[in-house]
């Protein structure tokens, strides 16, 4: 499943990295603690979080994540979007909660890392 399909099926707003939406998503991970993400998320995963500061982009770059979904209508900081654009990290947003997003991802067949 590509990011583009996920963005479409979950009606996510595409806020950065629109050129990279063809990426294949290898699985998913959800947490707001960056060290947990660093420890557990895998390459090509989609990351679901409430965090919206620029450091999430660094995390995604280092782990080579497919992209980031920011939930509950949290507005990404301009610096986050700018950095995501430069680093080619897709940022997708939604007003729905992390739980809802993750359950919908699961229905699409996106699996957790464990």
């Amino acid at each position: 499943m590509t990011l583009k399909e996920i963005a479409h099926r979950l009606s996510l707003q595409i806020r950065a990295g629109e050129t990279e939406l063809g990426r294949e998503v290898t699985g998913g991970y959800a947490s707001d603690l960056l060290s947990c993400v660093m420890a557990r998320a895998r390459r090509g995963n989609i990351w679901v979080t409430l965090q919206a500061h620029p450091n999430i982009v660094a995390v995604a770059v280092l782990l080579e994540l497919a992209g980031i979904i920011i939930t509950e209508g949290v507005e990404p900081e301009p610096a986050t979007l700018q950095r995501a654009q430069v680093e080619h990290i897709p940022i997708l947003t939604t007003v729905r909660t992390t739980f809802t997003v993750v359950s919908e991802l699961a229905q699409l067949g996106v699996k957790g890392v464990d």
Partner: protein
Amino acid sequence: MTAETKSAEITKIQELIYELKIEQIMTREVVTVAPENTIAELKTILKTRRISGTPVLQDGKLVGIVSIEDLIGALEVGEKDALVRDRMTRNVQTIYADESVVQAVNKLTQYGFGRLPVVDRQGRLVGILTRGDIVRGLLKQMEVEYHEEEIHRYRASHIFEDIVSDQTGLVLRYRVKAKDFTHGGEASSKVKRALERLGAQPPLVRRVAIATYEAETNLIIHADNGGEIIVEIMPEQIRVIALDNGPGIPDIEQALQPGFSTAPDWIRELGFGAGMGLNNIQACADKMNLSSKVGVGTRLEILFHLK
């Protein structure tokens, strides 16, 4: 080609059309005709040179442009002896050699032209730009950029073979500012890129990147004056050292407990300071040494064996 890959390429091209100058991609040897040439002569020139239009020059000055459409128009009414001057377009749209390619793209689209004469700032004809030149120029530039990255990678990956010593090493140093979360992760991202260029295996790159990120984040959160990340890359091992000059860790054993954190609430709200950084480093490293003195500073050493 899927819609996604198409849009990725379009964006790269969008970047390039702003970067590239017209003089980099234009055709410099311009075939021209004179106003006194006949339509029959024009036909021969277009045919033998395999072009679809040409600027019209009089005494070295650009006075018009004539295309294959003008030629067809003349031939249709049997005017093969008519002169170019009577069939050419006089009001010529030109473009400056030092303008970006995007200016040419806009002009070609706006007027529906197939070509634009290129002039210097003194108004002298220095070249011609067709849609074909733009496509060729962009493709060539994309290839050049791809090739340059390949060369970077090749050179970097051979550094340890090319330079002979009893112990060759590469030292990378990064300054990390205190409480600067905005730039957090930049040092580790640069370390990651360096290792990729050096040809390190992806699983190793990932371990070093994660450990360096956690060390960098610790400096940002805890060190009074920020600190320094030093990465020593050698054929047999990689050593990452994070140094700072305070405040120091009072109880190292406690600091190593998973979940133990001294980070203030505002930092935790950003998702940092979960008390897992050092554990993540330990999990990634082959060896980790942490030494600290309150009021003096902390030194964290992370080792990765390569053989």
